[in-house]
């Protein structure tokens, strides 16, 4: 399914939900190539998602998961996260735009929307934008 089409709210968006440092994220499955345990068939040096997002501190998860994603220019990139949660389809109407105050800054981090989930808020991330910035 085309991610740009999903951004325009035309089709349901399949999203891989994961968590890092207690923060919940979602990424379009179009940008996810595979999931694996830490150390299994990683391409090059993996990136710690928590470090790259600039949260501070060192990752403390004992058993991180490795997600292979499509970076800018179609490059394959391995990102280390705390845990995989689920894959689900999200209706475009559920996706809320970011508040204008933080939208510009967040977009530089690759965050382009918010999905309210029961008991939590998931930030939608675009790995192409994330790696470009």
């Amino acid at each position: 399914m085309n991610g740009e089409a999903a951004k325009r709210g035309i089709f349901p968006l399949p999203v891989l939900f994961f968590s890092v440092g207690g923060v919940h994220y979602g990424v379009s499955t179009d940008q996810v190539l595979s999931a694996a345990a830490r150390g299994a068939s990683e391409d090059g040096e993996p990136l710690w998602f928590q470090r790259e997002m600039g949260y501070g501190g060192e990752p403390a998860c004992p058993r991180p998961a490795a997600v292979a994603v499509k970076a800018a220019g179609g490059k394959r990139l391995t990102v280390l996260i705390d845990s995989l949660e689920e894959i689900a389809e999200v209706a475009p109407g559920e996706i809320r735009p970011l508040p204008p105050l933080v939208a510009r800054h967040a977009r530089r981090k690759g965050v382009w929307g918010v999905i309210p989930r029961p008991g939590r808020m998931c930030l939608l991330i675009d790995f192409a934008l994330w790696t470009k910035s």
Partner: protein
Amino acid sequence: MKITLRRKVLGLIAVSVLLTAFVITLVSALSIVRRADEKAAAYKETLLSERKAQIKGYVEMAAKLVENLPLEEAKKIVRGMRYGDKGYIWLQDYHNVFLTYVDPAEEGKDQTDRVDPTGRHIIDELTKVARDQGEGFLNYYGYVPGQQDRRPKISFAKGMPRNGWIVISGLYIDDIDRAVAEEQARIRHDVSITIAVQLGVALAATALLMLGSAFFVNRYITGPLERITRIMMHFNNDLTTTIPVAGSDEVGDLAKWLNEHIAGLNKSIRMVAGATGGLHNHAGAISSAISQQSSFAAQLSSSVAEMTSTMEELSASAVQIAQHSQGVVERADRTLADTRSGAAEVEALTVKISSINSGMQANLAEIVELGRRSKEITKIMEIINNIANQTKLIAFNAALEAASAGEAGKRFGVVAVEIRRLADSVVESTAEIEGKITEILDAVNRLVMSSEKTSLMMQQSQESASHTVAMLNSMVDGVEESTDSARQISLSTKQQQIASGQVLLAIREIDQGVRQSTDSARESSVVAGELAELADKLKSLVTTFKIEPDGAAAGRTG
């Protein structure tokens, strides 16, 4: 009455010449008359002098004759002295008494009171002249002997004081006045002839001058002017007309100025003709553009009308959607209430299961004991967990693949999800398996059968209850979300209804604007038509002028 320029000029010349001749003649005549008067006066003076000399001679001769004679002798001689037709001499004393006189009746009488018609005492004044001056003349009016009328007369008195006598004689001088009058008449006649001759000469000279003036005026003034007038009268908007330039005087300047003016007018009309063509084309272009604009406005009006109709239908649909959304909200509220009721029932069931579970505590204690003993097989459990985790990752990857496969991968995605859940169950079950293994290991014979059955029942009940509670809770959450969404939809629909109304209002304003624009385009079209008509009129007006090509007019003024 129309007076031509030629007549005016010639009339002015004639009047000037005649006036000059009249003045000259008048001055000349006055001079002649004045000289004639002087001549007449001199003539009169000459005659009078002759008369004076004559009477003086007679009186002096008489005085010579009688100065040494006695009175009576003297009287005889004086009485006999006559000259001319009526000339006589008388003798008197210094007391105004006549000693002799032509009328003997007057002798011996005092003549002091003898006066003439002017009141002059004639004898007394003659006596006074003789007494005072010795001799002298006196003018007065005297009687002609034998007649009653008096005539102008001059007398000469010469005193003879030694004798006491005065000798006097006089002559009438009215014939002198007649002679002078005749001379003056003759002179006036000469003057009249002279004036007539001068006037004749002046008239002849005037006639000749008029002929010459007529020739020159006609050749150098009125002729060129008449030619210019004739050309201009037949001008008839012909801008190729050239006026001949005769000479370098004012008429020539006028001809040059008219040629320059016609050339300038030719240039202007040529420019106006060009501009008129452009104006006509522009008016046509404007009219065409306005027609297109009018047509476009009509199409736009039709489109706006269709949009209005569509928006009205959309607004009606929005009302229906709002009503249906309200129904959905009510239905969702009921569903939420039912779901909460079901959740409460399941909670009660859980309580019951918990009660059952309490009864199984003893058995559980045994199981705990068995679990304590099953630590030895923890490594096996970790392996199982690792396998389950790997299975879970595989299930994630399978789900990713299924998601990227789109609609075709949906079933596979469901299987992947189930596998992931199974892996989760495996992970969860490892604990139970560990317990079961521990029981098997610690209470091989005593509790195997009962614990296994009880544990199995409890596990199944617990799982069912938990599963049901989870489902109900999930349903409650879903129904709450559905209710919120339905409310949001209802609110959005109402907002959409309001927005549709505003859009409809805006479209009606647009429709009104389009109608006004159409009216304006129609008025502009009328104005453009009038402009084109005006351009046509101007063009037809310009075509009444006959113009010559550009540059040809430049030679006319040179």
